[in-house]
């Protein structure tokens, strides 16, 4: 359906650095993911997780280094790149005064989705909001907004999905629903990158884990379901305060 350029890795980051003023937030990150990977990115607060994921989905440009998503470079093919990625953040990106249907219709039009009406109905069904298509989003609970935000992110059938703390503000039921949707997405062979604080939620679905600490990727391995129990001590080992090998770069 969609013409995609050829690529070795669906997500590729090489030496990505980013500075805010004089504060180096990312200090050279390399990451390569293959199609169908589900990566969960852990890390303490202020490690640069959100910055990194924003760079991956072209909301921010890398200070130096190269990013390539589905073969697109965010500097030169931003629009083509936007069409193949979806992004769920703890901000819902929804307009509070518009109804659920209107919000999806707006984003659907922006992504030029064919047969939009049916698509929206299907999506609302999927995220369990089929009963409230005409209610304004500001009347929704946080969990309902987060579900709708998920529908918004996948309205154009993205190839890659980025999730920045998607479980924030979801109750048990909502979290289970989100998990179901993610499972479905993963089983369709889509690539997913998720940021999480919550070890259990983060480890449920992924086949890769990575730990980001003060702007560096300190751990990145494949993980199978049996190893999940073993991961926790590893995680804490990397998170605890200890001096990092550093280079002075002026």
């Amino acid at each position, binding site marked *: 359906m969609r013409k995609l350029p050829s690529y070795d890795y669906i997500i590729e980051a090489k030496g990505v650095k980013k*500075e*805010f*003023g*004089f*504060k*180096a937030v990312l200090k050279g990150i390399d990451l390569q993911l293959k199609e169908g990977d589900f990566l969960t990115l852990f890390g303490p607060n202020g490690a640069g997780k959100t910055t990194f994921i924003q760079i991956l989905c072209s909301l*921010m440009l890398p200070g130096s280094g190269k990013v390539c998503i589905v073969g697109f470079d965010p500097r030169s093919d931003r629009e083509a790149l936007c069409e193949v990625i979806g992004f769920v953040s703890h901000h819902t990106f929804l307009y509070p005064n518009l109804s659920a249907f209107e919000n999806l219709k707006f984003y659907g039009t922006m992504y030029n989705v064919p047969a939009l009406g049916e698509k929206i109905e299907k999506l609302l069904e999927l995220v369990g909001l089929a009963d409230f298509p005409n209610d304004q989003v500001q009347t929704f609970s946080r969990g309902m907004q987060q579900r709708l935000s998920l529908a918004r992110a996948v309205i154009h059938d993205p190839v890659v999905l980025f999730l920045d703390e998607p479980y924030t503000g979801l109750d048990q039921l909502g979290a289970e629903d989100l998990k179901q949707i993610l499972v479905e997405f993963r089983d369709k062979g889509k690539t997913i990158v998720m940021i999480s604080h919550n070890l259990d939620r983060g480890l449920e679905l992924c086949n890769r884990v990575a730990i980001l600490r*003060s702007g560096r990727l300190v751990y990145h391995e494949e993980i199978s379901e049996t190893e999940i129990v073993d991961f926790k001590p590893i995680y804490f080992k990397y998170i605890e*305060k*200890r*001096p*990092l090998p*550093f280079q*002075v*770069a*002026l």
Partner: protein
Amino acid sequence: MTKRIFEIAFEVVTFLLMFAAIYAIFIYAPIEKTMGIVQKIFYLHVPAAFLAFSAFFITFLASIVYLYKKDQKWDVIAYCSAEVGVLFCTIVLITGPIWAKPVWNVWWTWDPRLTTTLILWFIYLAYLMLRGVVRENQRANLSAVFGIIGFANVPITFFAIRLWRTIHPVIITSEGINISKPMKYTLLLTFCAFFLFFLSLLKNRIKLERLKINTENVKAVYEEIFSS
């Protein structure tokens, strides 16, 4: 080493020329017949006006190059030049009325040149303010865009004011000053002196800004070592 010697020589020449200019203005140049002693402010006013515009033009060019190349060096140049430009523009706006009051009998008139200078002064003050309040990771981009807009505004403002002035006629213009030869030489000398002074100010300001950036970088590295 030779670079250092050259730099010192440059500063010394600037210093001496400034002295020569002061001598020329107060001793060498004759007193103008109709305007009297106040005319001497012209030697300060004219070069300052020229250099203020040049400084803003440098900001404009450096902003364009920055957006094209994305090299922080150009952002620093644009910033420093705007600062020096605002300084010279302030000199122009202060010396202008001092001269105008005895000669035109008003402190201020809405002449296109005067008004354009005033608007330009406002614009680049806004430029400096914008730099102060904007978030760091967007500062260079936003100020570069504003630096471009600010200068692009000059010709339209000039023409608009010329249009507007025709309905509020101002009788006096800045024309009709007799310039004798010593006056011409003095003006030329002050021009050179001010030009070197401007270059030296700009150069040192850029140097200072670079030092500041380096210090901040060292500080950031230092903090990182001790935080982890």
